[in-house]
């Protein structure tokens, strides 16, 4: 690992100031992804600003503003605490399931909510510094485009990058229309809807998100919703635990009788960002909650997929996973 200066930040303002002053500095929170990438020589910060002592871990009901009645998760709260908090388990079980589908018990105890959102792709060409990768070294090419791309994107990729975003938590947040609260150098807070937080690779795959250097995720806000009764996070992977998704589906339904009033579907493991299946959602509104309708919606969404050489299986897998996740959601999200 390359040498770096280490600073324990005293408060959010000084942490942000330190980061803003140095374009090669990084925040250190849980460290589960960043330290691994530093060991691999993928990330090469010359300074780490340890923000793990700043607090910002509270989980509470939002009492004012646009998301009143929803809940707020501290940006530096641990994934384990978010997953197991009574408010989250009761009102946002989809989020609990998504967090618990990710990583291992140890890693969830370390990883923070904000850090989870900013983790990098696990594309092996990104991780292996002897390989070309436009995300790691812009302009060097994409090793995966013509290489082994079984785990890669089927939606929204570009010739420059076919990597997928690995978070499970973010997939649930996309389905739940979460809002990311960040604090910038001038001390101001601003809110970024999750749909605007992530981006597709395009010509700048080195950028995972639209968050500028120097801003700190202070909280994640979840608007109030009526999905708690009927939601489910399905994760399909090569082994049954502790593996990244081939395809994952966050599904949530609000029904009246057997009619769907509102549907939310987001996919993981298929794109450079959590993939909101808006086409499928729109097809379901006003329809009966039946397997036949679930299948129609799923195939409408997956019809737009553009698989690579080794991942055509993800299209059918996505189809079936959407249907299964909707059925599980309809049945109350119980395993």
């Amino acid at each position: 690992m390359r040498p770096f200066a280490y600073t324990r930040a005293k408060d959010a303002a000084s942490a942000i100031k330190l980061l803003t002053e140095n374009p090669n500095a990084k925040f250190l929170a849980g460290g589960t992804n960043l330290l691994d990438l530093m060991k691999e020589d993928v990330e090469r910060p010359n300074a780490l600003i340890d923000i793990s002592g700043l607090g910002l871990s509270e989980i509470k009901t939002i009492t004012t503003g646009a998301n009143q009645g929803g809940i707020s998760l501290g940006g530096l709260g641990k994934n384990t605490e978010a997953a197991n908090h009574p408010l989250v388990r009761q009102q946002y079980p989809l989020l609990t399931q998504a967090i618990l589908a990710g990583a291992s018990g140890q890693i969830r105890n370390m990883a923070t909510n904000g850090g989870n959102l900013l983790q990098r792709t696990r594309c092996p060409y990104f991780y292996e510094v002897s390989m070309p990768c436009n995300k790691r070294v812009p302009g060097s090419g994409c090793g995966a485009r013509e290489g082994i791309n079984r785990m890669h994107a089927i939606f929204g990729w570009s010739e420059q990058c076919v990597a997928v975003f690995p978070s499970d938590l973010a997939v649930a947040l996309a389905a739940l229309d979460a809002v990311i609260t960040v604090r910038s150098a001038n001390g101001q807070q601003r809110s970024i809807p999750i749909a605007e937080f992530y981006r597709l690779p395009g010509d700048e795959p080195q950028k995972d998100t639209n968050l500028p250097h120097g801003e700190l995720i202070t909280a994640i806000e979840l608007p109030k919703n009526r999905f708690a009764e009927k939601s489910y996070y399905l994760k399909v992977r090569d082994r049954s635990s502790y593996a990244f998704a081939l395809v994952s589906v966050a599904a949530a339904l609000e029904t009246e009788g057997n009619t769907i009033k509102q549907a939310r579907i987001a996919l993981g493991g298929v794109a450079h960002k959590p993939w909101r299946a808006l086409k499928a959602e729109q097809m379901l509104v006003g329809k009966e909650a039946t397997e036949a309708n679930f299948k129609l919606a799923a195939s409408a969404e997956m019809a737009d997929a553009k698989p690579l050489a080794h991942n055509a299986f993800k299209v059918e897998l996505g189809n079936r996973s959407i249907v299964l996740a909707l059925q599980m959601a309809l049945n109350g999200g119980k395993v």
Partner: protein
Amino acid sequence: MDENELPELTEDEKQLFADLMPEDLTEIMDTGVNRRHFLKLLTLAGGGLLAAQSAAAEHVLTRPFQEPAPSGIDPASLENAVNVTFKVNGMAHKVTVDSRMTVLDTLRERLNLTGSKKGCDHGQCGACTVIVNGSRVLSCLTLAASCEGKSVQTIEGLAQGNRLHPMQEAFLKHDGFQCGFCTPGQICSAVALLDEAKKGYASYVTANVRQSAGPVLLSREEIRERMSGNICRCGAYPNIVDAIQEVQSGKPVEQVFRSV
């Protein structure tokens, strides 16, 4: 062989064992030491090595860690030195480390606590699992610098003198290992898991996460899911699950090697 009899040890062997480790004999017999393990001990004893090793182990486990850092480490030579004060197994330590130093390397290279193992060094195997402020974490992905004021518990800190932690006893009883390399991490992970279950934490296989009650009794499926961060290349998983289930439930679980 009658199941209740001591396993395949001659009276002479038992006597030798009793001489070498008087306090441990009954315990080891009860938890089912096998002949292979015993013979290994005998081989060591033959060269007088066992006694020496025990003395060294005793020293490592009991000495107060107030001695200076091992020679050859001059804080001034560190490029980005960080001072850290933290507790390991109840003992306070003040160390000066390179900012890059992980908790794992600090434990192993600076504090001579080599129980925690470096398996993959990338957070994929769980062999380095330790308990920090009550939570199981990966010491290979934790900087020592970030542990200021924290309390670390390692495999060396689980036993009370010669009295093993119930989880250690259960791993012995159920033969929850073969080569043993992943075992310290498995046991630390399992010990912290007991607390998580006591707090009612859910897992991805929990039937209904909305139903948050108190302490949960873990099924085998739950234990497997919750221990998935600890890889065992020898494949001792069924025995590891037996050991954890026995401690978690408080009810004896049959030893596989006795039932086959």
